[in-house]
């Protein structure tokens, strides 16, 4: 009797030992999302990237994700759990996951981590982000031409360099084609809160804006623009094509799929190294959604020409002369901004009103 129990126990132990060995054949890739996969914006596109990884490698990979993870201590718990569950590679897809990712990575040296939009790296932590400001330059050009009230509303999410960079880039290019243009900026302090985003859009429209730019993740501002009538907006993070016949005239699309596939492959091949990736329109990490017919042909052509010159590297959206808001010099004639300054950008360029919340 006792022997049998022992034997059974041994078999069970063997089975247990065998399971992880089997599981190791599959590369497990985890994703931590800040919003719901159905947000239609930021998280939706990351999840499309995850699906692309599954489609590419089929049974060789297993992907897991956790959505709606608040930035902060909760994130650390979720990432730790993912690492404990045997993930080989974990993508953490929001700026606020930076410190949690670094903390967890220190505890799991064999697990590879990839943090989106951050700047802290470690031997097993890469960072990656897209040059959204390149897309903002195209949007700004269209917005500057399209506005009739010369008031452009901008919904800011969280005051971090990435968002400030977007505001500056859009403003510079709107101003270039329309010297009378004025930006009104409203911060909602969240990446995703449809009700608040809708309110912000309505407020901007009430205060005279006829173009709404958003750096928040839901389609609520577009819905508000549609209701107002003669207001246009842009898709953010995702194409938001369902508003194509309405206010949406173009969009910035995050295309993470090629990057996710390449990094997963690197882990499978054992060639993964800690890197710092910051790609834009050229390599295709930033896509520009179809410019609709609402935009006059010559404006469309101008925007597409700008897009092409950015993609080829011929033009940099931050090319001098550009002054800072306080009137001090930033970039001299023909000078372009270096990545370090851009990555930590915490000032408005000359002409923008208001202060960046600190």
């Amino acid at each position, binding site marked *: 009797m006792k022997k049998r129990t022992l034997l059974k126990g041994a078999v069970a132990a063997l089975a247990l030992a065998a399971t992880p060995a089997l599981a190791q054949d599959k590369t497990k890739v985890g994703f931590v999302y800040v919003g719901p996969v159905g947000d239609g914006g930021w998280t939706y596109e990351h999840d499309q990237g995850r699906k692309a990884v599954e489609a590419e490698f089929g049974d060789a990979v297993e992907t897991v994700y956790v959505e709606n993870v608040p930035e902060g201590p909760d994130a650390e718990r979720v990432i730790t759990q993912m690492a404990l569950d045997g993930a080989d590679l974990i993508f953490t897809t929001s700026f606020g996951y930076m410190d949690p990712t670094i903390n967890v990575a220190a505890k799991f040296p064999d697990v590879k981590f990839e943090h989106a939009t951050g700047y802290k790296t470690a031997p097993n932590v890469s960072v990656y982000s897209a040059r959204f400001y390149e897309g903002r330059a195209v949007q700004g050009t269209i917005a500057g031409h399209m506005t009739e009230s010369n008031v452009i509303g901008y919904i800011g999410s969280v005051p971090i360099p990435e968002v400030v960079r977007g505001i500056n880039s859009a403003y510079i290019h709107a101003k270039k084609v329309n010297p009378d243009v004025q930006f009104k900026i409203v911060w909602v302090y969240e990446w995703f809160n449809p009700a*608040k985003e809708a309110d912000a859009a309505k407020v901007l429209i*009430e205060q005279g804006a006829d173009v709404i730019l958003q750096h928040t993740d839901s389609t609520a501002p577009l819905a508000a623009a549609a209701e107002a009538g003669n207001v246009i907006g842009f898709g953010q993070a995702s194409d938001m094509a369902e508003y194509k016949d309405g206010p949406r005239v173009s969009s910035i699309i995050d295309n993470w799929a090629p990057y996710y596939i390449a990094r997963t492959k690197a882990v499978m091949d054992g060639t993964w190294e800690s890197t710092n990736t910051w790609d834009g329109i050229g390599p295709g990490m930033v896509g520009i959604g179809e410019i609709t017919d609402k935009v006059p042909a010559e404006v469309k052509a101008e925007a597409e020409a700008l897009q092409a010159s950015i993609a080829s590297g011929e033009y940099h959206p931050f090319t001098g002369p550009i002054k800072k808001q306080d009137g001090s010099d930033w970039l001299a004639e023909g000078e372009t901004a270096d990545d370090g300054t851009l990555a930590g950008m915490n000032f408005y360029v000359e002409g923008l009103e208001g202060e960046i919340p600190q």
Partner: protein
Amino acid sequence: MDLSSINWLLLLASLMVAATPILLAGIGELVVEKAGVLNLGVEGMMITGAIAGFAAAVESGSPALGFLGAAVAGALLSMLFAVLTQFALANQVASGLALTLFGLGLSSLMGQSYVGLKPPSTPKLDLPLLSDIPVLGPVLFSHDLMVYFSIALVAATWAFLKYTRAGLTLRAVGENHEAAHALGYKVVAIRCAAIAFGGACAGLGGAYLSLVRVPQWTEGMTSGAGWIALALVVFASWKPWRVLIGAYLFGGITVLQLNLQAAGLKVPVEYLSMSPYIITIIVLVIMSSGRSRGALGAPASLGRTFHATG
């Protein structure tokens, strides 16, 4: 700062829209609490109402059916709470919290196939002559029906609680369920009815978000509105008209702070963002101090479990 760029009339009009979801949910919860039941599941019922209303409106093409569906869904979900607390005698606080979590999960499950769709638009009630009145017209007479319905509901609730026999009975049940039971009132039945009413109102509030204010379906879109509605009832010290004032104050500050930001007010916007909460706290402190302390009367049996013995 350019305050002249703020259109104060439009601001007044939009604060009414911003306040309507919490007003609806708040007035429902007030009735529930007046009956002596503390249902913390408002957030869960609201979001369930938001998706149920959205789904009903999209499938039928009629916003009215959407609101009806939302009310039914909210009431049905609240019945779960009623069974737990009135028959199984479970703890009300725990059951309410569970209801919120359940509602959030259930709604995102129900909403899987409704992401990215547009609901049929809720028509505005354009009263031909009234909405042309300068100043008052755009503020008071150019809203959709639900805004007026929510105000009418406050008036009806007030009149019901103050002047009708049924309202008196409901309040008696909330003040002292043992005494009400001894007088022969059906405590559990009355409380179940109140809970269903609260659920229906919360559902309507949620549907107002997904059908009018945002309007679209996204997971977690109530983002705390249910909790504000709960706070509103305390803020209003269980008086219907004060729920209306509180909801408009809260909705007003939310919209105002966005307006001031857009107008370029040179005050750190963090202060503006927290201002609704600060004002709520200040009002609570003022109301619960000094002579008016007695006015802050919560129903005496609030949150206590009733079991008929003998």
